[in-house]
Every structure is written in C-alpha cells, then in structure tokens.
C-alpha cells in the first residue's frame, strides 16, 4: 500500500477537495489534509512549516480520540478549537487514516464551518488507495 501522502491520485483528489471547500466557503483561511501519523498530504494555501502543523494536527486528533475512548463515548466525530480570531475544525475522513484540519475566520458561523468540513470529509470517503482506519 502506498502511503496517502506519496500516492499521486490521493494527493490530487485531496487538493481538489480543498479547492472546492475554499470555493464553497471564502471564510476558509487554511486547510490541510494529513495522515493519522502526521504527514501532510496537501494544504491550502501551501504550508512552509516543514510539516509541523501536520504533526500537531495528528497529535491533537489522537489525543481527542484517546479522550473519547477514555470517556466511553465512542469514536470522536470532530473537534473544535475556538480561538479569538477564528475556529479550527478537525475531523477524520470516514474510513481512512486521514484527518481534515480547517481554519475559518471569526466571521464564519460555527454551524457552517462544521457543515462544510463534514461535506468535504464525506466527499473524500471514496478515496482510493488507503485502508480503512482502525477501530478506536
């Protein structure tokens, strides 16, 4: 199996999905698709942080999953970081070891941010070339 971040078809499909997300939601400041183990597949706009944000997204997602397991509330669906100047939504692409991290500016409603991020993640459900994410 080719790792998602090294598979050209996966990278292209992910780039397309982020472009569509930006078209749908101009309040999107930054979005990234990363592997569960912290490698960036693609980001928009391109990041120049040597993968640091991808690693952080992966760590935060894993901690959220661990908390959900600890509290016995099933698999974590999405995660919100609400900050002064915007909110960050993280959610897993269903059935894949891939996480979407999206930063919206503070003008965007949380409801719409959650909705458009869900649509993007669902759109990527049919991605080829990656295996199903392990059960929590």
């Amino acid at each position, binding site marked *: 199996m080719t*790792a998602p*971040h090294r598979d050209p078809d996966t990278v292209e499909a992910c780039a397309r999905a982020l472009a569509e997300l930006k078209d749908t939601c101009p309040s999107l400041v930054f979005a990234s698709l990363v592997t*569960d183990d*912290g*490698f960036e597949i693609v980001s928009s706009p391109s990041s120049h942080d040597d993968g640091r944000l991808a690693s952080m997204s992966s*760590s935060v997602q*894993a901690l959220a999953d661990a908390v959900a397991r600890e509290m016995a509330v099933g698999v974590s669906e999405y995660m919100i970081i609400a900050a002064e100047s915007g909110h960050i939504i993280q959610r897993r692409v269903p059935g894949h*070891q891939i996480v979407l991290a999206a930063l919206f500016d503070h003008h965007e409603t949380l409801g719409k941010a959650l909705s458009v991020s869900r649509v993007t993640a669902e759109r990527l459900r049919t991605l080829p070339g990656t295996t199903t994410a392990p059960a929590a």
Partner: protein
Amino acid sequence: MSEHVILVAGPMGAGKTTAIRAVSETPVVSTEAVNTDRATSDKDTTTVALDYGEIRIDDEERIRLYGLPGQRRFEFMWRILVDRAIGMILLLDNSRPDPLADLAEYLEAFDGFLQRGSLVVGVTRHDHAGTPQLGEHIAVVAQRLPGRSVPVLPLDPRDSAETRLALMSLIATIEMEAMLSTTRSTP
C-alpha cells in the same frame, strides 16, 4: 501525595510504549496511529502524541509515566511534556544503524532538561545486537554529561521487572542528586 513525572524517550521502535505497558498499574492511554513511514521503522503503528501510565510506589508517592513520540517531527510534544518532568528513561534500540549517534542526538535535544533532570539509559535489543557495547554508551554519556551519575542498563521493555528496575534506578538517582545538591548548597 508526591508525584514524579517521568518521561520515556527514544527513537521510533525502541520500546517506549511497550515499557510503559509493562509497568503501568493503570490502563495505559495510547495515541497510536498507523505507521506510513516504513522507511524509518517497520512497525505497524507509531505513537503520535503520548503514552501515559501510572505506578504507585507507596501511599505517598506515585509515578506518572509519559512516553514521548519517537519521531523528530513530533518534537513539539517533547517540549510540552518536558516542563514538569524530573527524570527520563532514554531507550535506545541497539539494533539500529547507529545507536551511539541516537544517544548523542537525544542528549543534545534534551540538554536543557538534563541540566536539572535525572537520566537512566536503557539499551534495548542488546541481546540481538551486542555492539555497541554498554561501555561505549557509558562513554558517550560521560563525555556529554561529565560528573553526572547516569545508570546505563540493558533493558527488555517487555519485561516488567527490568523496566521497573530502570524506574527505581531513576528514582534513586533523582533522590541522590537532590541530596548532593542540598549538600553542596549548605555552607
């Protein structure tokens, strides 16, 4: 109750998660993800945030064990977790291409912490790869941390007794260094 925060550090695949699972008296919190970086290590999964376990020494003392991710791109987690730590078990996989370079890299990366915190080095897979020998690991530690007491032990992280011995060595080192520090500062 006093609580000791101990870190378990080392390169990917050195046995950090295994060691914590071997000794923790509470269910271990793990943050493992499927490993897509098979060039670095041929493990199925890798820790991407932390492992967490606990050990009660007695009614008054408890050890909180935090396992750090082994890959350098998760270095930000090292910085977050190191602040409260008083000691570290550094696990080195002796079957990797250059364990002594791994040792030197970690001693450098945690140089600030090691000025105040105590260290035990556990050499894993020592039975599979006899070289470098423990003496060579000791020499690197002595060169980087002159005058410090740093136990260097062969360690099978699957063996709870061996891992617990390393932990107890670390606690003893912490207590000894604290006592020496007090002695030195007393006029």
